[in-house]
């Protein structure tokens, strides 16, 4: 078993901000169902957190390079989780069910180093 960091990403210029009660309701229902499914199937190691889009990038000497949202990346990270899976292939398959894919987002799957 290995662990994988899932980063939920959405393009910064995404036209897919939920703009109606109906799609907000749908999105929340899908996310809730997805996490629940991961949990019952034993994949979920760390539920993780949602992230603010604002923030800062700090370099040596405490100098702030820029305040977020981060101009260098074309997308924003909405949140993260840690998932446990057999291998990268399985982790990828699991990520394929993430609701963020349904509205133009993506999941970055990164194996966590074991040694």
């Amino acid at each position, binding site marked *: 078993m290995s662990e994988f960091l899932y980063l939920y990403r959405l393009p910064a210029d995404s036209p897919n901000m939920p703009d*109606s009660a109906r799609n907000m309701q749908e999105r*929340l229902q899908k996310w*809730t169902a997805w996490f629940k499914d991961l949990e019952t199937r034993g994949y979920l190691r760390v539920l993780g957190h949602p992230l603010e889009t604002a923030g800062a990038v700090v370099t040596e000497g405490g100098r702030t390079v820029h305040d977020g949202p981060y101009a260098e990346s074309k997308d924003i990270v909405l*949140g993260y989780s840690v998932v446990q899976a057999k291998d990268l292939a399985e982790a990828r398959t699991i990520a394929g069910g993430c609701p963020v894919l349904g509205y133009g987002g993506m999941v970055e799957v990164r194996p966590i180093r074991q040694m």
Partner: protein
Amino acid sequence: MTTSLPDEHFFRRESGRLVSTLTRMLGVHHLALAEDAVQETLAAAVEVWAFRGVPENPSAWLTTAARNRAVSLLRRERTARRFAPEIGRLTDAEGTPGTESPVAHLPPALRDDELRMMFSCCHPDIPEDAQVALVLSLLSGFSAHELAEAFLVSRAAMEKRLSRAKKALSGTRGLFELEARDFETRLAAVHRALYLLFNEGYHGASPDAAVRLDLCREAMRLAALLLEHAPAATPATHALAALMALDAARLPARVDEAGDLTELSRQDRSRWDARLIARGLELLESSARGEVVSEYHLEAAIAATHALAPSAEKTSWGEIVELYDALLRLRPSPVVALNRAVAVAEQLGPERGLQALRSIPGTERLAAYPFYPAALGELELRCERPADARRHFRAAHRLARNPAERTFLERRIAECERQLSSGPHPTVRG
């Protein structure tokens, strides 16, 4: 922690409540800012709740969050000092922003916010179709895109309609006061808007059955809000709510799983919603305490007559024709006359129905309405003239506005063809 949402309409309801409340606090000239604050708050709630679960009192959570968001949007406009009174009002209302101050039970004032917003949307300067769109946008959380689909207009046209209406609304001196002298007049406009909204859902053009169902449901929810507020709970309001309940009761039998329409006479009446029928009859009874008989009373009485009939054949069609006659005196309209003609056909036979259809004054106003040629086709078919019937059904098919209507008419055309090929012997009607 991970409680789920109270129900599937949670965001719709909350969206309307929050926009109404913030607009009251900020003043109607800040309508756009209130909308932005609510939109951002709800979008953020989706992300946060996805991870942390829905808080115990989600409405209170949202109220606090939306207020905070409005404050920061006001500050971002960099003229915070000018808006100091608004910020003060927001922060004084229920504790300091930033602190969780759950409003355990929403006071009646918050329900009134939605009512005031509803009445404000029905301003005489705003055209009727825009009033309906405005109500759905501000009180029911529909996006311009969804409204464009529901009303079968382009997205650009809907955005224009909405922005004009919002401009008109935010230019008014303030939200409608429920104590105002013209309350009665405005209530009539609200009734009309809710009636149109319900009808758009029931007979509307949108190809998406789920969208139309949403429209019906919202009309019923908003009518229920009127019933909760004594001055608005007039006999006409009761009649309107009765009409909606009785018509909505037929929805499960009217549209099948595939989204195909089944006309009244062929519906499986055991699938009508008995609970809604009971509710509708109860509302109709309480609507009878006034002296004025409104058009909603008459339409509700027609719906009740259908609801109480064990079958199409055993329906009191004579009574229905009389109710339509009364309705025509109150609200002359070719659509009402069309429905009356269909009832005449049931009461006195298809030939008399055809006469009634052809003598409707102003049929040119029905030129784009597929149900007029469809009714002609139906009656011609009953008169055993399938060739004529097919011609009318084809005309109706060209006017059909969505796949459900098209499928329905294709089936009727196929029936005409079946009768044409099976020779002169008419088949027994099912």
